[in-house]
């Protein structure tokens, strides 16, 4: 099948609301959004705490998190695979090759991104606010929620960086999910598989959807951020 024919078929698949396609898109969103949610739950407060805390070895911790931002997805996948495999420490939970395993792997992958970028945003904000907040009697710990809320417009970009990474990656979800049709097949793993098998139409259709979704999420965040910033200063 040539590229043009594949493109037409891809559009048809999308427009006709192909069930297999819808399922793949649904699972991808579920896995990615869950992972981003969990990463934010841990990463936003952890990043803010790292920005404010002063302890020996803090520099080392920052370097480690910064490096982990570049963690290759296949390595994250491998680590989670070893942990969840039958002989691994969490083997008895039988999570390998389930969507839960994929969520864990992506959470491992993007939490460092959220932590590092949040740390950087909150550190700048703390420099500006520290005297005032301390004067009002705030401890560093008490300042964490205040700073997270005041940094909300910059932190949206941080969350989007994590989301982008999670949406785009193949390696981790492929290793721990296994790309099982109807069970753990996501947009990215399907694209990899279908391209290898020569089904360019499905691969291309998924590629178009993936790009559109990413664009839509980012545009939505950008516009709502602008509006909110104009009304909150």
């Amino acid at each position, binding site marked *: 099948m040539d590229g043009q024919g594949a493109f037409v078929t891809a559009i048809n698949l999308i427009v006709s609301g192909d069930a297999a396609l819808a399922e793949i898109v649904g699972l991808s969103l579920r896995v990615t959004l869950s992972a981003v949610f969990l990463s934010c739950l841990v990463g936003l407060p952890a990043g803010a705490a790292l920005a404010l805390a002063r302890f020996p070895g803090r520099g080392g911790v920052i370097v480690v998190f910064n490096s982990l931002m570049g963690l290759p997805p296949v390595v994250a996948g491998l680590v989670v695979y070893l942990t969840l495999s039958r002989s691994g420490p969490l083997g008895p939970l039988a999570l390998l090759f389930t969507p839960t395993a994929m969520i864990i792997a992506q959470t491992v992958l993007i939490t460092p991104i959220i932590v590092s970028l949040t740390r950087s945003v909150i550190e700048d904000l703390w420099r*500006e*606010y520290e*005297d*005032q*907040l*301390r*004067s*009002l*009697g*705030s401890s560093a710990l*008490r300042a964490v929620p*205040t700073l997270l*809320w*005041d940094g*909300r*417009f910059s932190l949206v970009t941080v969350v989007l960086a994590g989301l982008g990474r999670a949406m785009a990656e193949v390696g981790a979800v492929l290793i721990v999910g296994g790309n099982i049709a109807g069970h753990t097949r996501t947009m990215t793993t399907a694209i990899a598989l279908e391209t290898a098998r020569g089904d360019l139409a499905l691969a291309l259709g998924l590629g178009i959807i993936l790009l559109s979704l990413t664009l839509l999420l980012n545009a939505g965040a950008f516009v709502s951020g602008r509006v909110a910033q104009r*009304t*909150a*200063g």
Partner: protein
Amino acid sequence: MMHGTFSILPLRVSGLRFGVRGTELIKGISFELRAGVRTLIIGPNGAGKSLTLRLSHGLIKPTAGEVAWAGGTTDRRRKRHAMVFQRPVMLRRSARANLVHALSLGGLDRSERGRRADEALERFGLGHLADRPARLLSGGEQQRLAIARAWSLRPQVLFLDEPTSALDPASTKAIEEMIEAIHADGVKIVMTTHNMGQARRLGDEVLFLHNGRLLEHTPADEFFAKPRTEEADAFLKGELLH
């Protein structure tokens, strides 16, 4: 109006020293501040005016010496002195919410916070700004809000670090009026300024600092009429001091 059951004044500062990486910026300052008089800290740039305020307020720790309040008020949450900075820092929320936040840090009950915030806004004619995003207010409005925020905490002492240096004359006037009103309430005013007109208008007594040392601690009219030190004399004549 005297806040609290006991006074934290006089403030006794003795042998105060502060240095950063081997450079001593405050070189052994001692003074005593009494209630009822407005204290103006003046001196050339780099004299240590702002540092003296910060050390007294407890924002930074001295390398040597002591800042002692009467009655030993060490409980940070119930701190009886407040500070207004040169550039007010407002949170990204409404003007009123900024006051409520400060009062919450001050340890007030939820119900009391709103009441106090409204009271402070009304008192200084800022009621119409209550729901506006604080960061979108003008510089003068933000500084007035910062002073109202400090006042809402019912301090016995209010430190002000060059509160009008970035503002236009109209805002400066409004802020000087606020300071007068707060002084009339019985709140001790301790303020730095590099505006000599302002020092003459607001000062009851002057602390003259130069190069990290306290050279004069005199009543304001005496200081401006006949400074005791050469440095103060030169400073008042507008000469450059080293």
